[in-house]
């Protein structure tokens, strides 16, 4: 008899309340107040209930649910039919980001096999900052802003994915981006998305491998393949402007260097020229030397520029030259876009338009695919 699987659950009960009333998020207490005045009702719990019911249906007694008190999990767990273990505490009144972070810390200490959370980008950020890659987690999409790549496509698929991950003989996980935008700017009509970190999420191929199709290879092997391909073709003396992400970081790691995960870094081969560079710093380094930009699209969304890498501005792209943009991505990431094209939003329509069409993407060693940019 194998040990029961331990599933953690954190619900942000107010996530998504701003959406229906046009408020684009509920990150601050005043916005939440405004949402309530406009008649918003909590919906996060209802959606979490859908996911939990599926987990219970699939796994029954094989899973043990560990959750936070009250509206942050306990109530939903009970209504879905679980008898949860409730740990931690919640401050009185409205729940806050502190409560989310506290609950995440408790889950981390408890060492759950998978942490399900119901919320949006704000919730993902709070949790990501605490668990720091030490837990595998998956989002039930209930927020207004969901720019991160850490959610299942809907509550039902979150439940399915959680169940499949927990019963898998050899569960696999991968890193996915946690993004968030500035709500104030967003309400004003401007999107300014930042990459806040990476979360480990279940890596469930959309189907179990068939005998005939074989294995597509491990995520790490593919990342290594991509990195080796870029390194093999590197030009001596050229400046490599390397965007955020695990795929791009591996290139520098393979050369023995160190790259920031979330920043845009400048390298000449393994030599770091500048880490976490601003747009101005990048532009300063562009004088008189050939340069390449290396970027990877954001998982699930396909943004190449304009989300999480605003330092790579229209001006930077123009100076480097569109022909010197190198895109890298695993084929799984490409397939995850479901045929939707790559997106670019530099804020400069002329630059965006100049990049529209098709671009080659390095997907493994000596392997590329051609993909459309909208």
């Amino acid at each position, binding site marked *: 008899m194998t040990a029961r699987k331990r599933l953690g659950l954190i619900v942000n009960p107010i996530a998504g309340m701003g959406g229906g009333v046009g408020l684009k998020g509920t990150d601050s207490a005043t916005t939440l107040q405004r949402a309530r005045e406009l008649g918003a009702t909590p919906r996060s719990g209802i959606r979490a209930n859908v996911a939990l019911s*599926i987990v219970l249906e699939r796994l029954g007694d094989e899973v043990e649910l560990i959750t936070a008190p009250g509206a942050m999990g306990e109530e939903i767990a009970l209504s879905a039919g679980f008898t949860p273990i409730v740990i931690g505490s919640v401050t009185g009144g409205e729940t806050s980001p502190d409560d989310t972070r506290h609950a995440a810390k408790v889950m981390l200490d408890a060492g759950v096999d998978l942490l399900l959370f119901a919320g949006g980008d704000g919730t993902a950020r709070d949790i990501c900052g605490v668990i720091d890659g030490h837990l595998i987690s998956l989002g039930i999409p209930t927020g207004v802003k969901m720019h991160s790549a850490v959610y299942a496509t809907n509550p039902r698929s979150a439940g399915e994915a959680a169940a499949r991950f927990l019963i898998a003989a050899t569960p696999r996980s991968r890193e996915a981006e946690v993004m968030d935008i500035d709500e104030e700017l967003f309400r004003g009509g401007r999107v300014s998305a930042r990459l806040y970190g990476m979360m480990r999420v279940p890596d469930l191929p959309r*189907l179990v*491998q068939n*005998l*005939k199709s*074989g294995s597509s290879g491990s995520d790490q092997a593919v990342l290594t393949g991509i990195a080796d391909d870029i390194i093999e073709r590197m030009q001596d003396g050229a400046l490599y402007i390397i965007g955020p992400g695990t795929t791009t970081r591996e290139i520098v790691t393979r050369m023995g260097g160190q790259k920031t995960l979330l920043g845009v870094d400048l390298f000449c081969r393994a030599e770091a020229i500048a880490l976490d560079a601003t747009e101005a710093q990048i532009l300063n380094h562009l004088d008189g030397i050939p340069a390449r930009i290396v970027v990877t699209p954001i998982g699930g969304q396909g943004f190449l520029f304009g989300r999480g890498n605003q330092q790579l501005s229209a001006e930077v792209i123009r100076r480097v030259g569109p022909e010197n943009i190198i895109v890298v991505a695993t084929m799984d990431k490409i397939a995850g876009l479901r*045929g939707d094209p790559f997106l670019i939003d530099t804020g400069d329509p002329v630059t965006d338009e100049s990049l529209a069409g098709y671009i*080659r993407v390095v997907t493994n060693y000596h392997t590329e695919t051609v993909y459309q940019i909208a």
Partner: protein
Amino acid sequence: MNSIHTPRAYHGAKWDEPIVLDMGAPGERGYIPPAVEPEIAASVGDGASLIPAGMRRSTPPRLPEMAQPSVLRHYLRLSQMTMGAHITPDASLGTCTMKYSPLVNEEMARTPQMGEMHPYQDDDTAQGILEIIYGLERMLCEISGMDAFTFQPAGGSQAIFANACIIRAYHASRGEAEQRTDIISTSFSHPIDCAAPAVAGFRVITLTPGPNGYPDLGALKAAVSNRTAGLMMTNPEDTGIFNPYVEEFTRIVHEAGGLCAYDQANANGILGITRARENGFDMCQFNLHKTFSVPHGSAGGSCGAGGVTAELAKFLPAPMVVKEGDRFRWDYDRPDSIGKVRSFHGNVQAVLRSYAWIMAHGAEGIQTVAETAVLNNNYLATKLGAIPGVSIPYGGNGHRLQEVRYSWQDLLDETGVSTEDVRRRIVDFGLQGYFTSHHPVLVPEPFTLEPCESYSRADLDEYATVLGHIADEARTNPEHVRAAPHSAAIHRIQEDVINDPARLAMTWRGYQKKQGAAREVATS
């Protein structure tokens, strides 16, 4: 007769059957011939001494020693546990072209004149089979528009690899081997169109499909450059959609200096209708074990027939059969050949079976095969398209050719039942589990069906009835579908375990080497 929602009942046989190499006992024999008469023994001697000493084994091979009925019983049981794959309606394995192979062809392949031939036999004693090889070459040239064919590759993958090597040899002969590094393919082509050129040392660029299911010219133009060595693609692809831009594709690649190789493993819907030559290809390959009715899977040796234009014929693997007057011989003197891709002459029995199959059909019959396969496919697609939960991605393309890649995504969204669940459940109704998709998996929750020309309308109706029934079950009793199979010989295969390289064994020797570790894991 079955109604639309009640498929027939089935239960698979299950035997606790050991591996044949673990069976039998020392001294057990299938058949003991009577001792030879003394006169014959005196005249011939012991027989063994006729074999040169250096070629005699010092120890007998470690084969199982078994009585004849035990052997027959063993294989009958295995065939029961695998649903008698030879005759099960097998529309399930889309892109494998699992058609019925007439037994008369099998009988011919097993005659002593074929079965007891040796590849080192003198050409003078092998004129019959050499004529058949030559004859099949001429027929495939007619079917494809190519000028020469090799039958040495023992599968489609080897033939495609040979084509990749020919592309390399062609550019090398023009002094452009260093420059021509890139092969272009498409996402819905067979993965071997990428894997083979990668093994041959090329960089591979795949084109992802647009909204119609195939890549457009813009995608191709983004990939083509002066580094382009060639295009290697399937058409129709595994969606059953024929890329209507293919002539433009080959023209653009030719203009860039590349060659074009046509993967014709999906040829069953276009035989006698369109040809590689007219589509602008320089080379192609047919899988005799698919399109031309040679049994495959575990049922027999396969053959990838590789065809090329006259300009490229000198690069084909050696030897080739040539005709001189009324005689045929193997020609080994081919200095520009890429060399061998397979020992001896490949699977010559496959050539014989295909020759017989084509001769039985004639030119008109071949075209009827394609038309019937397309008709069957669209009949099944129409029936399946009416099942709630089934969708046919990239719709709006009209009829499909030989196969369709369907999606159960709608069913999954509605009921939580996935394509893998349905795949296991159909086995409960006596049908083979279906093929989902090659990589990359661009169609969500995919399943790929290919009802060839050999299935009757009743077979297809039964198939649709089973899938309709399961879709109903997914709504009324999803747990029953997810827990399937219930009536099969093996309840559930742990796919991640059988794909584990540490335990996967392709030979008995490999199995012996790894089984200790495997048994340890299985019991832990």
